[in-house]
């Protein structure tokens, strides 16, 4: 079990709901992953449209906790208003806060992010900020009232995996008591296992599962990788050595010449 903002979660995998081949595959992938939290967004509804109703019925039936996002927001005002609208629709004060600063890299605007985080925390939100691995920005976000940090490990949807292990390691070391969730950039289950082995508390991913040839199988694989990585971290891994060390006992071996 994993305690996130006072909620006990069975899984350390948080899963996005976008880009699946069909609603049925999305639902099955969520179940196969074992996730306890799915991310959702708000978008313009067509006049007379029922797209939102259908999607909301599908998500509600999954029984997971909902984490709305502010994806696509490029300003503090946009992000704050979207968060408030999400709180009303989804009935949760949790918000995955995104303030995007660059169209190509989808890199967070960390200055806007800190400002939006402060406004929302003061308004009673539990802010989960999508941020970089910059330690100073992380400090500012904590100062703004965030209790959780969600650093990227590579650009959103890139599937590159952890491109700067040193920075992630430093972040874990620098904030031993802050829940840290790697959000964005994971491509393979081994990437998820790697960051979990570093001691990260959870991972959040979407594209790597949704765009896999078999999203349901990949969801299950990520679920297992996250568990394996966490258990490895908790079990104390062997440090690498530069010399060979025999694993079979050398005492008592036969001599044939």
């Amino acid at each position, binding site marked *: 079990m994993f305690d996130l903002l006072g909620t006990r979660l069975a899984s350390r995998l948080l899963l996005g*709901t976008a880009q699946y081949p069909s609603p049925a595959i999305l639902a099955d992938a969520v179940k196969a992953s074992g996730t306890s939290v799915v991310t959702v*967004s708000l978008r*313009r*509804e067509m006049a007379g449209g029922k797209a*939102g109703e259908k999607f909301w019925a599908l998500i509600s039936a999954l029984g997971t906790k909902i984490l709305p996002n502010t994806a696509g927001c490029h300003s503090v005002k946009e992000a704050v*208003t979207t968060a408030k609208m999400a709180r009303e629709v989804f009935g949760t004060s949790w918000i995955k806060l995104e303030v995007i600063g660059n169209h190509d890299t989808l890199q967070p605007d960390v200055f806007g992010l800190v400002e939006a985080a402060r406004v929302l925390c003061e308004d009673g939100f539990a802010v989960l900020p999508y941020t970089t691995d910059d330690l100073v920005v992380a400090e500012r976000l904590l100062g703004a009232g965030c209790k959780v940090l969600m650093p990227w490990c590579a650009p959103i*949807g890139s599937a590159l995996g952890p491109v700067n292990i040193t920075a992630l390691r430093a972040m874990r070391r620098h904030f031993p008591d802050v829940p840290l969730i790697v959000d964005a950039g994971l491509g393979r289950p081994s990437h998820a296992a790697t960051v979990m082995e570093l001691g990260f508390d959870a991972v959040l991913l979407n594209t790597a599962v949704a765009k896999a040839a078999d999203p349901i199988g990949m969801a299950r694989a990520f679920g297992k990788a996250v568990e394996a990585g966490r258990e490895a971290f908790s079990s104390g891994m062997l440090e690498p050595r530069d010399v060979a060390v025999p694993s079979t006992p050398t005492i008592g071996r036969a001599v044939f010449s």
Partner: protein
Amino acid sequence: MKLMVNGEAHEVAAITLAELLAALDYEGDWLATAVNSDLVHKANRAEFQLSDGDRIEILSPMQGG
């Protein structure tokens, strides 16, 4: 009155936000509304008076990462 609703121009007779939603066939508990970039709570739509040129956003749950 001329309004922008989800980025499209509309000429409507509605006076309040609730009337606008009804006129454009928006219905449902899952909708969220904002006028001129500020949230208007569901409970306040019936009394929220619209003005010429207002920009209205009507959002609903969608897939997200």
